[in-house]
């Protein structure tokens, strides 16, 4: 951070107060700069354009309050970060440069990946702020005679569907569902997979054999059949989809982590940790897992994209999120019947899926390069 230091320049601090992130962008630190700048501008726009709604949200339901909270937190964070960075108060920054710092540096040099990350952060912000952003309620039906299949217009930026519902609002609420399912399912699978994989790799012997055979069993189970069965038995709910996806995706992570741990276990610092009298639990949690995390983060990022596609596929088949709750997969499926007459019904949710998954894959690829010391130059 020392070579392109912005520290101590008064004008940057002034600029940073009004438009946080702009100094960073101008100095060529694109990733950080754009993320902060866009977050700040986006949030500001929400406040300005939907002032009434923002104020009204104070008495609203939990989702509106959550949205308001997100707004406040992201505005504050963006502003504080940018200000601190410019004023250069953190002097000890170039003393300890950890592997993570190196990875962050390598990542921020990768333009495509940074763009992907900005898109993802934007998507999550939008998803959280949806109650304030969406022009209509996602299930609100307009006049069925005059407002069905309205094309792109000022009142309905992305048109309306067969029940005269606003497509943009449904798309925004759909983002909430898709992103939440992707995030939660992957969180479950990564936690379970990392822990089991690390234990299997470190303990070896019979424990390893039992865990890995269990992994083989779970992997060999056809996920779709399992989902259809469970949904057939218990009915379809978002909770079910998350649970099934989360509990069938972890074996991949477990295998990756086990492989990493098997090679880490032979490294001298793990031997040294034993020689220092650390317990097995401490060695696994504090010494093995943090070192095996690189490939896990990559797999998790790619996994979220994957899960979003899976969920969209399930919803398309009618097994996922049930109408009238909006979901991108369902919207594509419903719009398919009217594709020639009302092209916007399937196109926009389809594009949303493509761009979201593309962003996750770009970030995943970028992380893979950044976290692999062999590829780092």
């Amino acid at each position, binding site marked *: 951070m020392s070579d392109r230091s912005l520290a101590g320049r008064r004008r940057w601090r002034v600029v940073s107060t009004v438009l946080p992130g702009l100094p960073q962008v101008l100095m060529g630190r694109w990733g950080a700069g754009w993320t902060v700048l866009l977050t700040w501008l986006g949030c500001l726009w929400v406040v300005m354009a939907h002032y009434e709604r923002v104020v009204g949200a104070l008495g609203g339901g939990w989702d509106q309050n959550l949205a308001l909270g997100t707004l406040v937190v992201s505005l504050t964070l963006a502003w504080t970060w940018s200000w601190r960075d410019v004023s250069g108060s953190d002097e*000890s920054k170039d*003393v*300890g*440069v*950890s*592997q*993570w710092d190196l990875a962050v540096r390598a990542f921020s040099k990768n333009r495509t990946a940074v763009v992907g990350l900005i898109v993802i952060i934007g998507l999550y912000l939008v998803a959280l702020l949806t109650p304030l952003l969406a022009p209509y309620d996602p299930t609100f039906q307009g006049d069925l005679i005059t407002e069905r299949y309205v094309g792109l217009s000022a009142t309905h930026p992305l048109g309306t569907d067969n029940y005269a519902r606003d497509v943009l609002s449904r798309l925004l609420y759909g983002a909430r569902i898709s992103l939440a399912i992707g995030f939660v399912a992957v969180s479950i699978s990564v936690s379970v997979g990392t822990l089991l994989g690390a234990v299997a790799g470190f303990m070896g012997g019979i424990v390893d054999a039992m865990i890995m055979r269990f992994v083989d069993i779970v992997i060999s189970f056809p996920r779709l059949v399992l989902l259809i069965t469970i949904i057939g038995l218990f009915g379809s709910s978002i909770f079910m989809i998350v649970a099934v996806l989360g509990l069938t995706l972890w074996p991949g992570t477990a295998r990756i982590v086990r492989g990493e741990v098997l090679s880490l276990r032979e*490294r*001298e*610092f793990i*031997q*040294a*940790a*034993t*020689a*220092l*009298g*650390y*317990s097995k639990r*401490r060695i696994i949690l*504090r*010494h093995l897992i*943090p*070192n095996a995390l690189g490939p896990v983060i990559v797999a998790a990022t790619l996994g979220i994209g994957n899960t979003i596609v899976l969920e969209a596929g399930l919803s398309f088949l009618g097994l996922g999120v049930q109408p009238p709750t909006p979901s991108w997969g369902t919207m594509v499926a419903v719009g398919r019947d009217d594709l020639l007459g009302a092209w916007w019904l399937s196109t926009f949710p389809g594009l949303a899926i493509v761009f979201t998954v593309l962003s996750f894959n770009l970030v995943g690829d970028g992380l893979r390069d950044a976290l692999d010391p062999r590829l780092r130059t």
Partner: protein
Amino acid sequence: MRESLLTVQDLRTYFFTDQGVAKAVDGVSFEVNEGETLGIVGESGCGKTVTSLSVLGLLPEPPARIMDGSSVRFLGDELVGADEARMRNLRGNEISMIFQEPMSSLNPVYSVGDQIAEVLRVHRRIGRKEARHEAVRLLDEVGIPAPDRRVDEYPHQLSGGMRQRVMIAMALSCEPKLLIADEPTTALDVTIQAQILELLEELSVNHGMAVLLITHDLGVVAEVCDRVVVMYAGQVIETGTVLEIFTEPTHPYTRGLLDSLPSVTDSGRRLNSISGTVPNPVHWPQGCRFRERCPEAGDGCEEEQVLVALETTGRSSRCFKTVPVNLTGAG
């Protein structure tokens, strides 16, 4: 007689592999007294490292197994077969160990300060602030310049010598009574080697800490050790003080080792080497294990050799030819 700090008696560590039973350590006995520096010398594969790992119970079982009848006593406590909790409390606290490769002996994801502090927090149960303070003090003690800055650095930012110093600081943090140093200088370049050895010597004097130094480098032994144990093929073949070993080696193997050292006075001489390699631990040779490589092998060498105490106390040898006739009390 007072008990030594560490007493190893008839230690047998076998590895049960597909190729057979490798008798890596086959009846090793020695003791380390409080405050002294004992060197274990020998070629690669003679069982030095396995001996040191066996003391701390660090070998994975299976394939390794410490055989019945082996005994490792630390301050009178039997360590062979001690439960895991006792061993954990011992390791890093009363007996510390430093390894050969300083490059990979530190965890790459934590700063060196965090790693030193962790040892203290595990064994001493002290607070975060206090541990960090102590870490800075230890870094200073092992001779790292600007310790209050270095404490936040990560292993990859330090040179090999620095990392070995950090390892020593970690090993030292709980004031152990015994430090096992397994080839601590092998991976370092020569100037750094001397510095690290000096540091070890200084610390062992200041803290009254005994050092068990494992090395294949007789130069290192000459520099820092008080007594020497020479190992060959899983057995102790000669013991004595440094002076005795260097001036009057009794075992042909020890003489061979000394002969293969370059000499300052006799430059231009071709370096000698001991022909052949250490035999396979699955099939140690019958009789004297050094027989096949020994220039003095002859009649009587096909007999199993025993370690015999020589007239001077603490001196012993495993070669029947070199044992003086007027021996006192064979062991």
